[in-house]
């Protein structure tokens, strides 16, 4: 995404089959004092949204379960088209979370944490920056511990764990004796490490490129993670 995006709100398309949830998303968007997000399309199927006004959306907010069908299988094609997908769901088990991330979604939000994290996530994703919700943090900690060659450092793991436990970033920083910025960096770097594994997608490439630009990781790190992923180390 180029710099011009700084000057206009993020264009969001919402794919949701429950009107009450859609109304909730609209109210969060409207409540943002900086008006950073604008809903340009909504509907209860991907086709209804993307074939209409949602075609140029910067971010798609996708309910994982539409009319009783899980949408995990549709995520790779969306990512292959270069679309940034934020998945939200009532399912919060780590297996679902990891499958959604592996399929290429940028972020996973549970409906329980939407109010607090929804807008922040959408804005971060629109800028190709990593955003880790507490639910994702728990899934990453467990996934990393169960691999043959864990990718997270002890500090990254601790930051993710405290974030999952519900502390805000300031409290995590106090607990770990570091600055809030460092906490943010640890958590985001953990996400980047996992973004560079699994299936390639243009959205992942831009996420990694932005992470390098921001100094979060170096190109050498990416090669390292990918070689580990190629060995089948990640679950």
């Amino acid at each position, binding site marked *: 995404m180029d710099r011009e995006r700084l000057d206009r709100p993020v264009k969001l398309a919402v794919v949701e089959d429950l009107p009450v949830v859609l109304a909730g998303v609209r109210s969060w968007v409207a409540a943002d004092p900086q008006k950073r997000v604008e809903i340009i399309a909504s509907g209860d199927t991907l086709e209804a949204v993307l074939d209409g006004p949602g075609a140029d959306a910067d971010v798609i907010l996708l309910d994982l379960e539409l009319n009783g069908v899980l949408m995990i299988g549709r995520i790779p094609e969306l990512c292959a088209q270069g679309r940034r997908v934020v998945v939200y769901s009532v399912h*919060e*088990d*780590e297996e679902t979370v990891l499958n959604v991330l592996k399929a290429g979604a940028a972020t996973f939000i549970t409906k*329980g944490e939407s109010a607090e994290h929804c807008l922040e996530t959408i804005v971060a994703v629109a800028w190709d920056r990593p955003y880790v919700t*507490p*639910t994702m943090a*728990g*899934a990453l*900690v*467990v996934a990393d*511990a*169960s691999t043959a060659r864990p990718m997270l450092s002890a500090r990254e793991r601790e930051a993710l*764990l405290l974030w*999952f*436990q*519900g*502390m*805000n970033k*300031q*409290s995590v920083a*106090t*607990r770990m004796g570091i600055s809030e910025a460092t906490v943010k960096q640890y958590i985001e770097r953990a996400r980047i490490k996992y973004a560079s594994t699994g299936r390639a997608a243009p959205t992942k490439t831009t996420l990694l490129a932005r992470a390098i630009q921001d100094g979060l990781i170096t190109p050498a790190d990416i090669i390292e993670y990918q070689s580990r992923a190629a060995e089948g180390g990640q679950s």
Partner: protein
Amino acid sequence: MTVTDPELLVAQRYSLASTRAAVTIVAAWHLGSDLPSTIIGWSTYRWPLLALAAWILYSVIGVAASVVLLNPGRKLPFGPWPAAVLALVADAAVIIACRPEAVMTAANWGWGSVGWLALILFWPRRTWPRDLGVFFLANALVMLAGMAVADSLHQVWIGKFLVVLFGSMVLQAGASAGAHGFDLAARWAADNSRTLARAEAAQRAAEQVHADRLRRYAQARQAAAPVLTRLAEGANPSDPDVRHACAVAAARLRRLIAETDDAPNPLLHTLRACVFDIEKRGVVVHLLTAGTVPPIPLEVRQALIEAPLEALARARTQARVTLVATANQVIISVLSDAEEFVLPAPDGVQVATQVEGGLLWIESGWTAP
């Protein structure tokens, strides 16, 4: 058949020892007595080759019966009786091979010896005493017929016939009865030993159940007694401190009830039960889990859950409870609006705490040794 019971194994070894002894006696008798009698009496036979053939036939039956007896999985092709009849044929063949005047000499070894073959042929049968009796009778009749043909039914020869007949029968039936008795005694001993072991195991289990009950009673008492005593002494139930103490005691009692339920994931089951009770008090609890809890002992579970449980019980309006589990680590945390309290420090787990922004964070962790 695989035998795992040690007593049964011992009994089977005893059985094997007695069957080996029987086979050895038969072989020793046939080689040590029948063979020399055949060789020494060679010149007294009418048809010595027939006597030799009878000796060989006896040997073949003996080997076949021994192989079957020592390998419980095997069976004689037509059962023991056709072999027993063949043994009687060998017996008759030796009588026929003898000259009439030699029928009552040692050269006619068959009729005194075939009883040993019958011993091992009928060994595994429950009806061995009857089978052996019928066989002895048939053997006596064959010999009497042989004596009649040889014109040897004189008083003296009848007397000798009876002596040899009874002598051999007593030896052969006695050996069989003795060995079977030995076998039976070993099985009785095994049965007794097994019964005793079962009784001991049942007693140990009963003692364990009793000890567990005592322990749980002590824990229930420890959980509830102090607050009940305070209330009995006139403490004011609307005092927030008393109410917190009651909530903590109730949560502990709930944990005691839940922790022995047969659930696939006992730790999560206990945690859920406690959360459920606390939600009923109007506290909004958000329970999140990640990972699969490895099997951990009851004491560790108790220690691990103690501090989070108290934090939950003291929560006023909201709590976030998380359980993170990996193969060798389990961490439970509670972030709630409870007031700070004196942390329990149970053995074997690490408890950490932090207060910030009006929220109390408690983490209780266990790492596999």
